């Protein structure tokens, strides 16, 4: 068999055109004995790194060529190949130009754009339109002498064999005329012929029609699959096949040699980066350790610096340092996390605030030579100010040198079923019905079986196609999107390293590689992420400084050491609003785990995650912590890995390490395992390790059951990996927010409320929590509110509220801000605040004179902001609806003190709202009510039966039968708790946690699914301070709200 190199091949990164993954293509090319394979995705290099990694992973003797297929504006199609680094840079540059000109997803290039290519090879696929081909061939002959070819692709389609026309001879003729050699190619779109069906489906999706209607747009046969060399030999002249090898032999580019050059401006001239980093660390030591640094920490710093130098990571740390220093200068709160972030070096560089003296146990685990991981530092910034950091980066390095990494958006189950179904001609409501009724978290019944339960016959042709093709398309890339914050910054133009294209967001550009690609090539990125809690904390700090004159920073609080009072509060599950531990599941775990120190909090945050839960590690850990189960280790190595978590694996790193010490994985295998957890085809990739892990652990004397659980845990991490280093950084913020909640509750709630939307809770829930903590809350007022909520100190306030006493001894209150008012424009708020007299408005007319939008005025009226001027919010709205004041005649009166010259606003008297009306209006206008609660109103109206209020549940005994009633504020069926739904009911005294088992839910579907106000009778479960009601009977009380409506009365 004669060797062959395939030079024209599209992967599925030519979105909706290629029907095979790059990985599949290289493996198949190798099987067929191809010498080389060019991945030539359309105006893209997005798939090529996957191909590169697959070749390395499987150690294939296949040469990878990087290229791209381009359809030019003149109607010609060419394939560019990059023989060397320079050609590659030029090619990336051309792709960037073509992409940047157009909207996301498209490109536009003329042949003139290709004239900048000085090294690249060009293969031309003639259009077979004689006059156009003549023009183009002339142009080619001038610009690509010695590096141009004609492509001949035989695909057995009708046009190749049409009577009186012969593509082969036409190509030959052109070749003679141009003196370009002819080179064979296969125009590969799929690695095997069996992908034809999927290929057709992709075409139909692209054309937004069904395969039945796609007609001639579909491929007419399977010749676009990779073909065996024997077949190729029969179809192509030998010389043209040989020519492929000539072309391939000229391609010497190795993706592995692509090197990233860091921006040099970060280091002063004549100073080595090592020296500069050392200098900055020493500078940092003086800030972080004003009283001197211990020998042990000095040793750690030296070791870390040596490691950084050895791996050549100085610039990475310097780049991150530069970004956080910017944030520090701008007073933007930030916090680093990630494997490299938890080092003393990062503490000294002020990238993190994790004090090594307090948690020395953490160090040294993170930067490690043996694990071939690139260092990972993610920096979280205040979510509302992260854009400033982005702009700083763009400004400092320029858009040519800084861009965001891409995220590959792939077909997931829902989008896959919908797209494939549509392409098969199934109507959309049927598909909707399927999608809504399939529970992806049902671990016993796969979606395929569920589909047949929903009425799809899997044995019918259509059913079979739907199931098979949906399965096949899952994981296919659909388009590129921007990574949330992964920046790549380089010394030279980035487009010489990887093409840049437009993102859908205006003024954003992304590179064509995602973070896995960057990692595969050993390129480093800096993650600039947004975190709402940082905004909240910064606001709280500002308020504390302003009100009490105390300046705080995160490091100050952690440096004080673990505060028992703060942990006591957490142990009571008093954690609404506290970072990371405020969810329902976390709150029920807090009283059981009873975190008492920083590291407990690190575990607390990591344990309520899919990994430990799926691995069933939570209860063993609890038992051991409570001393109900002995802590033992099968071997000293395992003890080393698991000692800090009482022998139970909790963190992702522990599980990987466990695979090494307990199942005999090599370093390389462990690395593959780690990558498999992050890859798109998780379960498929991870299954490969199952056997090895279980057999390995069993042969080393572990329980099979334990090994199975460890594997389940690995699958769980695949869904949501959670390494210890992240938990460690999050725990700092969790502690700081809990600390604020304990010592400065006003500043805490106020900072949180001003940073919404974030976290789990609505303003209403947060404010109810605040008032249960005894905080005074004051309604929105036209004369007293500002845009934001604020803390308001006033000696005249009731000084009995001890918690409200500020440092100066004056009582405080939280005044709600205009930001809560729905439909009120920020422009309107600004205008209002600007025009508001020092001592407030005295009449409604005066407010009207400010010149606000009618909508704004109505919104304010309905929010009862005029309560101090008008007793009736309906009347206020009515008055504000009047357009009369808008007449120019009245404008001059605005600031004059004679409102009596104006006509009275209205002579009509509107009904006075009752409590129910007020509640409705409160919710409609602001989403919360300070004065009323629906359950309270219903109870007062006497329409509810007897029930136990949330606050009284504490006094009930374990296993007693209780009835509770509340507004359904939360309904969660986590995938990690099979068949259980957690309801949160809210009455006027607090929240009630209700557990509804699947059978209960099924038997009372209507109440379960649709209730807004729910009455539950069930059994009280009490474990320490954790209280649940296990639901027995559910009854929907929503309709009772109609009874509150006083005016559904007879009018006569």
């Amino acid at each position, binding site marked *: 068999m004669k060797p062959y190199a395939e030079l024209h091949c599209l992967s599925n990164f030519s979105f909706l055109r290629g029907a095979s993954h790059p990985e599949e293509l290289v493996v198949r090319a190798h099987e067929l004995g191809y010498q080389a394979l060019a991945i030539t995705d359309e105006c893209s290099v997005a798939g090529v790194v996957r191909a590169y990694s697959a070749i390395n992973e499987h150690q294939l003797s296949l040469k990878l060529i990087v290229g791209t297929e381009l359809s030019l504006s003149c109607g010609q199609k060419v394939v560019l190949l990059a023989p060397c680094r320079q050609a590659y840079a030029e090619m990336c540059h051309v792709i960037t130009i073509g992409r940047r000109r157009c909207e996301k997803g498209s490109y536009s290039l003329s042949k003139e754009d290709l004239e900048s290519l000085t090294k690249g090879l060009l293969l031309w696929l003639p259009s077979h339109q004689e006059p156009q081909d003549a023009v183009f061939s002339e142009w080619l002959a001038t610009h690509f002498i010695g590096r141009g070819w004609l492509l001949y692709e035989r695909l*057995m389609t009708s046009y190749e064999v049409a009577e009186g026309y012969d593509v082969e001879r036409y190509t030959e003729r052109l070749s003679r005329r141009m003196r370009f050699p002819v080179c064979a190619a296969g125009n590969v779109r799929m690695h095997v012929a069996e992908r034809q069906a999927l290929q057709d489906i992709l075409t139909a999706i692209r054309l937004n029609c069904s395969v039945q209607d796609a007609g*001639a747009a579909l491929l007419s046969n399977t010749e676009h699959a990779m073909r065996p060399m024997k077949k190729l030999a029969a179809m192509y002249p030998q010389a043209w096949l040989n020519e492929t090898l000539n072309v391939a032999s000229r391609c010497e580019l190795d993706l592995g040699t692509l090197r990233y050059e860091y921006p040099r401006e970060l280091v002063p001239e004549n100073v080595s980066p090592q020296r500069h980093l050392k200098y900055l660390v020493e500078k940092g030591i003086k800030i972080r350790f004003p009283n001197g640094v211990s020998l042990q920490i000095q040793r750690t710093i030296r070791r870390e610096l040596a490691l950084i130098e050895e791996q050549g990571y100085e610039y990475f740390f310097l780049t991150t340092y530069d970004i956080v220093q910017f944030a520090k200068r701008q007073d933007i709160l930030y916090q680093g996390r990630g494997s490299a972030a938890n080092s003393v070096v990062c503490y000294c560089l002020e990238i993190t605030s994790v004090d090594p003296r307090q948690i020395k146990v953490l160090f040294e685990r993170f930067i490690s030579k043996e694990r071939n991981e690139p260092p990972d530092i993610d920096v979280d910034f205040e979510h509302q100010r992260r854009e400033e950091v982005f702009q700083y980066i763009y400004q400092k390095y320029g858009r040519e040198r800084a861009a965001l990494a891409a995220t590959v958006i792939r077909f997931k189950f829902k989008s896959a079923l919908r797209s494939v179904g549509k392409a098969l001609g199934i109507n959309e409501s049927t598909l909707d019905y399927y999608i809504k009724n399939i529970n992806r978290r049902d671990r016993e019944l796969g979606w395929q079986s569920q589909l047949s339960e929903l009425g799809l016959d899997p044995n019918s*042709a259509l059913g079979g196609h739907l199931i098979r093709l949906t399965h096949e398309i899952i994981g296919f890339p659909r388009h590129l999107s921007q990574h949330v914050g992964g920046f790549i910054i380089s010394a030279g133009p980035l487009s010489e390293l990887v093409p840049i294209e437009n993102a859908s967001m205006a003024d954003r550009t992304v590179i064509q590689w995602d973070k896995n690609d960057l990692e595969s090539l050993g390129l480093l990125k800096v993650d600039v992420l947004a975190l709402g809690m940082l905004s909240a904390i910064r606001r709280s700090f500002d308020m504390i400084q302003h009100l009490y004159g105390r300046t705080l920073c995160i490091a100050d609080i952690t440096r004080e050491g673990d505060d028992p009072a703060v942990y006591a509060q957490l142990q009571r599950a008093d954690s609404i609003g506290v970072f990371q531990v405020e969810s329902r599941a976390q709150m029920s775990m807090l009283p059981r785990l009873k975190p008492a120190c920083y590291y407990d909090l690190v575990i607390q945050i990591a344990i309520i995650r899919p990994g430990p839960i799926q691995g069933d590690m939570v209860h063993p850990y609890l038992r051991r912590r409570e001393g109900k189960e002995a802590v033992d280790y099968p071997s000293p190595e395992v003890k080393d890995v698991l000692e800090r978590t009482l022998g139970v694996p909790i963190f992702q790193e522990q599980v990987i390490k466990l695979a090494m010490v307990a199942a005999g994985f090599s370093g390389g295998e462990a690395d593959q395992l780690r990558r498999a957890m992050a890859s798109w085809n998780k379960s498929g990739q991870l299954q490969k390790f199952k056997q090895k892990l279980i057999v390995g652990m069993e042969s080393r004397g572990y329980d099979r059951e334990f090994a199975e659980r460890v594997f389940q845990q690995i699958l769980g991490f695949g869904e949501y990996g959670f390494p210890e280093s992240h938990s460690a950084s999050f725990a700092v913020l969790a502690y700081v927010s809990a600390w604020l909640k304990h010592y400065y509750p006003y500043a805490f709630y106020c900072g949180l409320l001003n940073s919404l939307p974030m976290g789990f809770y609505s303003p209403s829930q947060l404010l109810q929590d605040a008032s249960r903590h005894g905080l005074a809350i004051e309604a929105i007022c036209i004369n007293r509110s500002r845009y934001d909520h604020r803390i308001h100190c006033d000696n005249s306030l009731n000084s009995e509220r001890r918690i409200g006493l500020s440092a100066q001894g004056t009582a405080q209150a939280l005044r709600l801000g205009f930001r809560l008012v729905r439909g009120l424009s920020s422009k309107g708020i600004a205008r209002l605040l600007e025009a508001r007299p020092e001592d407030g408005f005295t009449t409604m007319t005066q407010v009207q004179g400010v010149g606000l939008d009618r909508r704004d005025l109505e919104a304010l009226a309905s929010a009862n902001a005029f309560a101090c001027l008008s007793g009736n919010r309906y009347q206020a709205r009515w008055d504000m609806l009047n357009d009369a004041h808008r007449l120019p005649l009245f404008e001059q009166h605005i600031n004059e003190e004679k409102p009596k010259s104006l006509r009275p606003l209205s002579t009509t008297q509107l009904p006075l709202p009752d409590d129910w009306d007020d509640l409705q209006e409160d919710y409609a206008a602001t989403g919360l009510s300070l004065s009323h609660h629906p359950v309270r109103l219903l109870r007062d109206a006497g329409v509810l039966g007897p029930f136990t209020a949330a606050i009284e549940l504490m006094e009930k005994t374990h296993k007693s039968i209780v009835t509770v009633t509340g507004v359904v504020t939360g309904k969660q069926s986590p995938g990690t708790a099979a068949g259980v739904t957690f309801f949160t009911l809210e009455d006027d005294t607090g929240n009630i946690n209700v557990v509804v088992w699947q059978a209960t839910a099924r038997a009372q579907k209507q109440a379960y699914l649709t209730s807004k106000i729910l009455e539950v009778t069930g059994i009280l479960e009490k474990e320490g301070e954790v209280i649940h009601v296990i639901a027995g009977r559910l009854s929907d009380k929503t309709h009772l709200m109609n009874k509150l409506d006083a005016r559904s009365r007879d009018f006569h």
Partner: protein
Amino acid sequence: MRWLALHFPQLQLDGVYSTQAGTSDKSEGVDDNKVAPEPLKPISAMLVLDDKQCVCQLNDAADQAGVQYGMKLGTASALVDDLQLFNHSSEFEKQRLLEIAHACYQVSADIAVWNSKTLILDVAPMLKLYGSFECYVDALFEVEALDDVRMSAVIANTPLAAYLLSCTGDIDDPLVEQFSRQDVWLPILDRLNVDSVGIAREQSLQLKRLGLHYLGDVRELIEAEHSRKELGNRMGKKLLSHIAQLFGDEVLALTYFKPKDVFSHSVLLEYEVYRTTALLFPIKNILQVLQQYLQRRAKRIQTLSLYFQQRDGSVLSVNLASAEPERDSARWLNLVRLKLESMKLPAPVIGLRLEAIKLLEERVQSSDLFDLKPALSPGQLVARIQAKFGDESVKKMHLEADHRPEYSFRYESVSTQPEHTSRLNEELVSHDSTHVSDGECLKYSKRSQTLRPSLILSLPVPLQESVRFIHGPERIQSAWWTEAPVCRDYFVARNTAQQTLWVFRDQAQEWFVHGLFA
């Protein structure tokens, strides 16, 4: 004046023909009189969804399961296990309402189509004719078209009031004559939520946020002249005018329905129908309705059209003609059955409509083939020829974008109606370059004309002579989703008689002739 509103809240759902009984294979004898027995098993829950995928119509089974109007599909489908879904079609409802108006026109003269669900009938002029209100209502309710639809009928002294009351659905005895008395209906109107008084959503929202939750609130407010003026200033004169029309202080001019001399009847099918035989049951019912319709008018018809609404949205039309003007439903059914027997449904059918446009007087002389009137349109000519020779003899050719040669064209029956089928296919054939980004496909379709022989055999015949290949092969391997996927290598070949043949080899390595080049 008194006005009667007929409100049909579930027009689409009521139009669903229950095929559950009809589709069983045993019931062959369609022309027996008792073909469509009552459905045996309880009807499953059926929902009509609006474009936001929310429930807008539901049947009793769905109601019992707790499904409510406005519910999201997700919630509804969690409540009911076995669910039939339909997308709302206002076209269908409009059509059905016109059909009902048509039927009512037999007993009541002034009928206004209020919206897609409601008819307003002017009662006053009819009282003279019928003598009493009771007699009128009795006559009206005799109209068969009203039998199988859910309806609420309310009489009031303004059209708007009648309409609003008919929508409320909680009135015990809406047809009592005293309803024309204000003291009876005013309290009911007063209790209407402002959401349901026929004003724009923004307006009703605005009213509520002023504490005016019920029509009565608004009415009481505007009793005072100054308040009426102030409300007008704030909410616009249109609102005041609307209320005035409601209470009869302002007259609303209605446009009355003018019937066309056309019979049309639509039904939706409960299930997608794949076989033509299953369509006979609903058609039989409609033909019976047609027969009564014609009897009443002393008319006959010679042609009728059937429109099959297919799942993909396209409509398949079938025209039938009888040799003689005919009214008898059984005869027409026979014709329909003959026609459908030979027909294959290209896509499942979800609804159908029967239409007879040309109603002929009772005594019409039948004309023979050569007695052609000059005014005959080509369509009529075709219909005439079809009537004489059977429509199977008249065909027209249609090109399809299909890689399989035998499906690249088809003969189809000639219809006088414009064809709606495979619109997309046609687009792909005629302007391929705009839709298709792949160069290959572009070339393919441009050159495809030159490669296909002028005569393609409908059935390939085995090749039984030696041939010499000229071109080839072209491989066609496509249509995996159909029942007739192909995988063949085609060659252009010449036989000893110098005929140019189009031959192929199939997967079993057998050779066939599929066409001849001219």
